[in-house]
């Protein structure tokens, strides 16, 4: 490799246990053209056994997706999410920040105990402030780990997000109307 700085960036990314921001790379590799190095390394590793990818402004190496079958062997199968968990995660990702009441309004049912816990435990969502409405409900957003895990460069990479937005399906939730059924059902508890 011709460029000593590219080499340093490559070594730092390779040794890191976590995806690194440009600032973190610079903190270790020293001052230099981080962006240029990342571009050149991305091109260099394209099509190899592992690749350099960006996830939410953080960079890491990961194996090529088409080699998954070679590498899954002998690994613990990751826990399967329930249908409620998958829907809740999708709602948070596409509507964030979003409150529990808004999630319930979209799903039409109360969120079972544990659904949000499982997503938080997985490190994919986190509480992010409160909505300034009566009751000040907690809002949830996705995390950088969510982007890393699902291979998304940023939230703009969410599948079909532009079409959904254009169709008005990501507009703010009208709680007054949509929560009707949920509230009534909730009175049982």
């Amino acid at each position: 490799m011709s460029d000593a700085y590219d080499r340093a960036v490559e070594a730092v990314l390779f040794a890191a246990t976590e995806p690194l921001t440009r600032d973190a790379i610079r903190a270790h590799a020293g001052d230099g053209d981080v962006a240029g190095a990342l571009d050149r390394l991305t091109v260099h590793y394209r099509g190899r056994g592992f690749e350099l990818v960006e996830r939410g402004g953080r960079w890491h190496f990961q194996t090529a997706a088409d080699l998954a079958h070679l590498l899954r062997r002998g690994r613990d199968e990751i826990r399967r999410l329930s249908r409620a968990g998958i829907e809740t995660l999708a709602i948070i990702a596409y509507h964030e920040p979003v409150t529990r009441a808004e999630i319930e309004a979209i799903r039409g049912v109360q969120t079972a105990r544990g659904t949000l816990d499982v997503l938080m435990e997985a490190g994919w969502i986190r509480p992010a402030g409160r909505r300034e409405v009566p009751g000040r409900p907690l809002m949830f957003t996705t995390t950088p780990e969510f982007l890393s895990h699902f291979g998304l460069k940023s939230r703009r990479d969410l599948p079909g997000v532009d079409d959904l937005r254009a169709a008005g399906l990501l507009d703010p939730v009208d709680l007054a109307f949509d929560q009707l059924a949920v509230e009534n059902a909730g009175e049982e508890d």
Partner: protein
Amino acid sequence: MTDAVPEQLTLDLDGFEGPLDLLLSLARAQKVDLRDISILQLVEQYLGYVERARVLQLELAADYLVMAAWLAYLKSALLLPRDPEVEPDVEELAIRLQLRLERLDAMREAGARLMARDRLDRDVFRRGAPEGLHVVRKAFWSVEYYDLLAAYGQVKARTRPALHVVRDREVVTLETALARVAALLGTAIDWREIERFLPETPNPRLRRSSLASSFLAALELARQGRAELHQEAPFAPLYLRRVAS
């Protein structure tokens, strides 16, 4: 046909996550594109479902019945000539219901697409044994100049009264002077200058305080008839004598 329904109905309801889920399934059975569904037909289907459950005396969760009541209202309003006075607009309610179904459907679809992506630790893997990056932290202390000055100001403000008290302790109180003058008077028979009743001190401030309180003590003793005072002229030496009892 009716004979076959009970079993299937029970099973189906078990599989639904609430009335909206059931509505969405019914809507999807109508057409592929949710934007073209017939709300009226959907309402009919839902109410039919609930009615059959009622006939078969199946216990339905309350939220299914709440939704049924709301849909029955929507149905009657849709069938009646529109009354512009009534709010909200029935057509609007129907569109909103349709949007809700579309949104739930979209989120389901999105969830499925997310799960099908190349996922870290399932389809793609990070380096198995990274060396790790280590950061040796070096503390770098910071204080603003203002904070430094404000802190000193507060220290001074806080401790100044304490210094005050130390200085003010250098006084002779009236009680002390009274006791001393009365005691010394007992030992003297003749006139004596008031300065001779003062304790010895090199501290001029203490001496002034002593003189002032001793003078007051002398006045007090005179008032009580225990001492006599004598002075030739203003600012002349002041003499003090015990009153023989």
